[in-house]
């Protein structure tokens, strides 16, 4: 036997982005000739081999194809190209409690859900007490699930999925569910699976978790595998890539050929540097770059980060925006309208060799944009309104 629990060879996944999606026969006929569909490759040429009993973390920026890859491996999405092979029973924790029926009791849902996940009645009978015990729902197990709190719902979902007795566990950012105590319990369960020699592949944004839990980590970006190897190295690669590293220039191969000198946030109307903006304001970010004579052409990547350096959005320049050669260049990123996000934002800027992957320089500029919204209650990350709804007549 090969020994690989998960094998993906040259996997590509294409989605068709229909600007107007045909969901009926009429529309399909009408739209048949118009070229309003656009191909989007969520995964490209992904090769992945995960050995038995290995724990692999899957990390990358939002939209890099992590969840798509998990769904392809779980057999939920079919790959457009390439092939996927997974040995053994898969438990995919993509969403906890998917398929619970609100009208049924917790007990009935456990039996139904476990049955959907591939367990026989005898197996469920054997595991039932342990599931209820794990979910800490003993007093409520015969209540209808629609009366459960969202925490109870998710706990029961995890408990069932964790008792499927999987050979391969695919986890998508669900370990952060429930309260802290339960999250710790979930992590303990994952550790138990590891000790039992099961194969685990999980997507996470908790980069610290990766080094703690994983044997290996894979960095995905724009559907491609950017790096596959040591977790610590993977994390620092991703941080450098996002420009959110604490010591950004660490481990970069730029040799000072090209460096980021400064970044200014400017109000294009007034012309000067400015800190305070409102949602929807026009705003420009000037990045000043200095290159030596032998400096290569480079691309700029700018991440606007929120509290705890959490990436809010990413802007990538067209390739080769910084021309080769020694000079001081200023690259302007112009936002016609700042998105509906409020708070104090920092900038992380990275210079990437054009056509390559190596980061030439990266710098973080703390607290450069302060955005106010229409809300009157201080900073709220997003815009929203509250409204008091009339009381519902519920028995």
């Amino acid at each position, binding site marked *: 036997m090969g020994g690989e629990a998960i094998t993906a060879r040259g996997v590509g996944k294409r989605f068709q982005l229909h600007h107007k999606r045909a969901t009926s026969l009429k529309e399909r006929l009408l739209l048949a000739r118009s070229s309003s569909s656009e191909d989007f490759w969520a995964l490209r040429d992904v090769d992945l081999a995960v050995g038995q009993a290995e724990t692999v973390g899957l990390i990358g920026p939002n939209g890099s194809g992590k969840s798509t890859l998990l769904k392809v491996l779980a057999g939920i999405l079919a790959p457009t190209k390439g092939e996927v092979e997974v*040995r053994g029973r898969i438990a995919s924790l993509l969403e906890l409690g998917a398929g619970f029926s609100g009208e049924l009791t917790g007990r009935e849902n456990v039996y139904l859900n476990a049955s959907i996940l591939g367990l026989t009645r005898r197996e469920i009978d054997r595991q039932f007490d342990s599931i209820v015990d794990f979910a800490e729902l003993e007093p409520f197990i015969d209540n209808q699930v629609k009366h459960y709190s969202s925490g109870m719902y998710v706990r029961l979902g995890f408990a069932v999925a964790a008792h499927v007795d999987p050979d391969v566990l695919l986890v998508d950012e669900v370990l952060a569910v429930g309260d802290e105590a339960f999250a710790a319990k979930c992590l303990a369960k994952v550790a138990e699976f590891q000790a039992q020699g099961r194969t685990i592949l999980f997507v996470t944004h908790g980069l610290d978790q990766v080094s703690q839990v994983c044997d290996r980590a894979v960095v995905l970006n724009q559907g491609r595998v950017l790096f596959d190897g040591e977790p610590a190295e993977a994390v620092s690669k991703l941080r450098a890539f996002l420009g959110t590293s604490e010591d950004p220039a660490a481990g970069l191969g730029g040799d000072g050929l090209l460096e980021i000198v400064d970044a200014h946030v400017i109000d294009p109307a007034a012309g000067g540097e400015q800190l305070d903006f409102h949602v929807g304001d026009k705003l420009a970010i000037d990045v000043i770059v200095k290159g030596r004579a032998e400096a290569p052409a480079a691309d700029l990547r700018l991440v606007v980060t929120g509290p705890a350096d959490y990436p809010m959005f990413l802007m990538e320049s067209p390739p080769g925006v910084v021309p080769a050669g020694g000079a001081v260049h200023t690259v302007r990123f112009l936002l016609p309208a700042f998105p509906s996000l409020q708070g104090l934002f920092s900038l992380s800027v990275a210079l990437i060799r054009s056509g390559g992957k190596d980061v030439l320089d990266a710098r973080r500029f703390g607290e450069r944009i302060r955005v106010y919204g229409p809300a009157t209650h201080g900073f709220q990350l997003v815009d929203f309104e509250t409204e008091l709804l009339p009381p519902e007549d519920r028995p």
Partner: protein
Amino acid sequence: MVTLLADGERGEARMASAADARALAQTRVRWELLANLVRKDLKVKYKNSALGFAWSLANPLLYLAVFSIVFSGFLLRGGVPRFAVYLMSGLLVWNFFATATMGATGAVTGSANLVKKVRFPRIVLPLASVGFAGVHFVLQLGVLFVVLVPLHRTAFGAQLWLAVPALAVAVAFTVGMSLLASSLNVRFRDVEHLLEVALLAWFWLTPIVYPVALVKERLGELFWLYMANPMATVVVAMQRAIYADAAPIGKDGVAVPVLADGGYAFYLRWLGITGLVSLGLIAIGLFTFRRLEADFAEEL
């Protein structure tokens, strides 16, 4: 040492095949899962309902009341003797077909959350709808037979055996339609609306409320065209099995032609043809379902 290695290898190989078997359990259709889904649908439908299953008798009884009034004198002269028995012998199997097909059409689209997040054999979704309708059908049929004991003893003759092939064909045809409709509906939501209208027309093209003998008399040579409707074949065979009399004696002492034929050959021949058509439909349905299944998670 060598034997030890071989043992270890065998152990590993056994583990691998066990793992493969467990993987198969997640993609193969399991009766237990099917039964659980049917049970869930029944539970959800009758939860918090005092009369529970009794409600499923309401629909056929309502039809009986309405059509009895309509056909009692002013539409059909003389009418069909023992109209209630005639109606029920065709209506129940039609209802099975119609509710199963309609239910299956929305089965995949209605379980979008499950389909998008969990790996399981999706084909159980339309099959569960057939099972759900099947449970009701069996129970309704049970009630009908209990009522027939005092009302229509002739039903319990040798001709009742005809119900066996008729039901087999009905199930096969329904499964085929369900597979086709449920998968096509994911791509084209029109299917649901189209089918709703089509089933209404289909109902009247099937001899459920009017005597098939009338159609045979009017169409003459072209009667085969009418019988090409698979549900007509099934319904006519069920009527022969339960209603039994081809031309019962009416109120005025004259025989009223009701059924198409008083023998068996006619029914068996048509059931054979429809059976083959149904198997073909299952093949097409399976093929279509398997083809479209891969994209379900994207289309929903």
